[in-house]
């Protein structure tokens, strides 16, 4: 994604010429806005037209197979499906601009309401997965780089390689059989035990947070039991990627001259590795982690399928198979926004962390 946010550093030069500076910022910002808007429009257009060429009759999802022909025809008109494509698109865009994503055919709820319910499930899972992936992946990557070529390096490499090459749904099923069926350590399916499902009204939709805030520790424990396996699984997959990238960034840093001089100055090895090298390696690492987070936030359809996790990926997939296009469009816009936002944040963090982008 090459969305350039307003370039702060450039404008610093022209401190004296305030007017020119403001103009420049406005121009930059306008260009940036244009990029975002056109990307959104493109996103909407592509999704919309994919939806219309899918050889599934949307009326079928509403009425089922048995409805008489007259009812089918009437419903088609009611849904506006008899209008020309362009007109349908125009009507849809008009609705979106007014903040109305329409209703989902499958759930009969406004799409916005559905997204509010399904997205927190994905958010909670992806956040935990990324946390696990970073907290384990970075130390492993550092260790592999420090002990390059040793057996530790090999073990980390193979551990990561397995994470890379084993299908996630297959591993998910195996883990379920082991930890849920055999050992009874974890909960399944969904996010919470059925017993608690109706005893508890979430506020944010992030169940870990909600149950902790309300002091419902039984429920909290149930949520932990349900989330731990999918989170570990996603964590493992982002770990594979993060540890590999950490290793290569660290190798790059460790061969730099400032490391040699730090060692010559008598700094302890731990300080050299953890304070000096890692700190510099952290700059590109932030981008890597942000991208892998964005990846998980897109809703890992496969993990969500295996664990019956009511997240955004499952929601979109389900809607897609039923040609419930309002839901698919809404979901795609949400995911697109998340992607764009995270890219921006990664970019800003990059600027903040890397001193070279600050000094002009």
């Amino acid at each position: 994604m090459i969305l350039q946010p307003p370039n702060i550093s450039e404008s610093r030069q022209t401190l004296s010429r305030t007017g020119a500076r403001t103009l420049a910022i406005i121009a930059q910002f306008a260009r940036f806005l244009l990029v975002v808007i056109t990307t959104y429009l493109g996103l909407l257009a592509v999704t919309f037209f994919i939806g219309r060429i899918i050889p599934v009759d949307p009326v079928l999802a509403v009425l089922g197979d048995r409805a008489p022909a007259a009812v089918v025809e009437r419903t088609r008109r009611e849904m506006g499906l008899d209008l020309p494509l362009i007109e349908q698109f125009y009507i849809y865009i008009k609705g979106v601009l007014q903040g109305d994503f329409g209703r989902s055919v499958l759930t009969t709820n406004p799409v916005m309401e559905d997204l509010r319910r399904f997205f927190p499930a994905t958010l909670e899972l992806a956040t935990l997965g990324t946390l696990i992936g970073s907290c384990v992946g970075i130390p492993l990557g550092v260790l592999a780089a420090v002990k390059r070529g040793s057996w530790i390096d090999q073990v980390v490499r193979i551990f990561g390689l397995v994470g890379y090459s084993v299908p996630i749904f297959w591993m998910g099923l195996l883990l379920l059989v082991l930890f849920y069926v055999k050992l009874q350590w974890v909960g399944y399916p969904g996010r919470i035990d059925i017993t608690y499902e109706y005893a508890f009204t979430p506020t944010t939709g992030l169940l870990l947070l909600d149950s902790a805030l309300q002091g419902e520790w039984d429920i909290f424990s149930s949520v932990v039991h349900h989330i731990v396996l999918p989170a570990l699984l996603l964590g493992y997959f982002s770990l594979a990627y993060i540890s590999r990238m950490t290793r290569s960034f660290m190798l790059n840093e460790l061969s730099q001259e400032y490391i040699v001089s730090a060692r010559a100055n008598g700094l302890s090895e731990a300080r050299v590795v953890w304070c000096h090298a890692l700190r510099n390696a952290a700059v590109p690492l932030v981008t890597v982690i942000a991208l892998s987070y964005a990846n998980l936030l897109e809703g890992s359809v496969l993990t969500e399928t295996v664990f019956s996790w009511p997240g955004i990926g499952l929601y979109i997939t389900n809607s897609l198979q039923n040609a419930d296009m309002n839901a698919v469009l809404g979901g795609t816009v949400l995911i697109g926004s998340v992607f764009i936002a995270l890219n921006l944040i990664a970019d800003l963090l990059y600027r903040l962390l890397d001193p070279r982008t600050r000094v002009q």
Partner: protein
Amino acid sequence: MKLSKTIMMQRKWLVATALAGILATAPMAMAATPIDTLVQGYALDEIITMDPAEAFELSTAEISANIYDLLVRFDVSDTSKVRGDLAQSWTISDDGLVYTFKLKPRLTFASGNPVTAEDVAWSFERVIKLDKAPAFILGQFGITGDNVTEKARAEGSDTFVLTVDRPYAPSFVLNCLASSSSAVVDKKLVVDHVIPVVPSTDYKWDSDFGNDWLKTHSAGSGVFKLREWRANEAVVIDRNEGYHGSKAKLARVVYRHMKESAAQRLSLESGDIDVARNLEPNDLEAMATSELVDLVEAPKGTVFYIGLNQNNQRLATPEVRQAFKYLVDYDAIGQTLIKGVGRVHQTFLPAGVLGELNDRPFKLDVAKAKALLEKAGLKDGFSVTMDVRNAQPVTGIAESIQQTAAAAGITIEIIPGDDKQTLTKYRARNHDIYIGQWGQDYFDPNSNAQAFASNTDNSDRSKNSTLAWRNAWDVSELTAKTDAALMETDGAKRRAMYEDIQRTVLETSPFILLFQQIEVAGVRKNVRGLKLGPSFDTNFVGNVAKE
């Protein structure tokens, strides 16, 4: 170097112990469901509404049957008879056009309102005027939005009169009234939630008859009432404390959406659900020996079949149609792929329906099929495609038929697809071969007879979408016979007519009937009294208890 190693070790150890701690502190208790709640794992994704005038899915029919009462229901022990539900008795006029129902005394809705004939009449009115998918069941008696208030009317508080347009077989009329779309709703309660509508050419009425509200609420007089429906998540029903009959034993029943058979099995074994409703043969086999679970089963009114599109010149040859019927390994499929979930059945009326016929003339016979193909001038075989939806057991059956057909020189290319996708193609008659299932709309032989043997207009723009039409099978003679059977008032004669139609279909049709579905539920041993009925709207849960 040493230090970093110790730090590493410490940190890893910390993470490991933290995780182990979380997992070990509260090991999951077995049988986690509450004692007064029944939790069923059920594939519910097809539900789009809870309004009985709009819903037309098997799962909604089942839940509806526990929430709403009907005028009449068919007798679960003898499905060829109906008995009164809200109706105490009924009479039929000599010309066979007027049905008069007398309601039982002192009936109440879950809201506390009394059940009156006015409620019945209004329930019929809203079905017809809303004109949603199930409206045709009542509509086929000549009832339209313009005449419904005369044709279905209340006479006093306890008498309901229904007038039909032709002298149909009484069993047919009563069977239709026993379908879930004729559910009686609480008029007094629903009118408070009616939304005004601006009439249009498509919809002439100025109100939605409470359709929007009833999508997510209930207004019935049944054993249970709807607490909540969350699409793709769950349906929850609570005991109706004011029920006019014997009350439900459990306080709550949860239908929890779970799509995969494997997921249902895992949850059932762990006690997170009490009943698993969509188990597939492989999981059933594993459950059969389980100490925790019983299997409960009942044959259902759904048949699986293969349709050969007659717009394909080769498939339209009579010999080729017959050849296909000899190219299915019925026995092997019966013993493996559908073991426990179906039994081989070659006629279109499912067992249990008036006029059922148990003929099974076909078995795998490649030599015979080859001879038939040679007679049709297709000695060297041919290629053809088959649209198969991605679900067991149809995928397995399709692959099995692909193998046996290859033995006779027919190359079948399987086109897999999602349910709705293959169906869209099928409904547009763009398939060669389609494998699918057909469930009865209502428990009467006419439902399936019309589907398989009636095609009033074979043109592409036809208004009918029967299975015969979908496969372009133009049969005016059979269509007439089907219509005649509908009018036959004599039960025995009517039965004989359906047997005759089925024999003709066996001999000449482009349909290869494969098997009749058996519904199987895995039930944990502490659940008592769960019985599956002969149709989905007879899967009652009022008598279920837990220990």
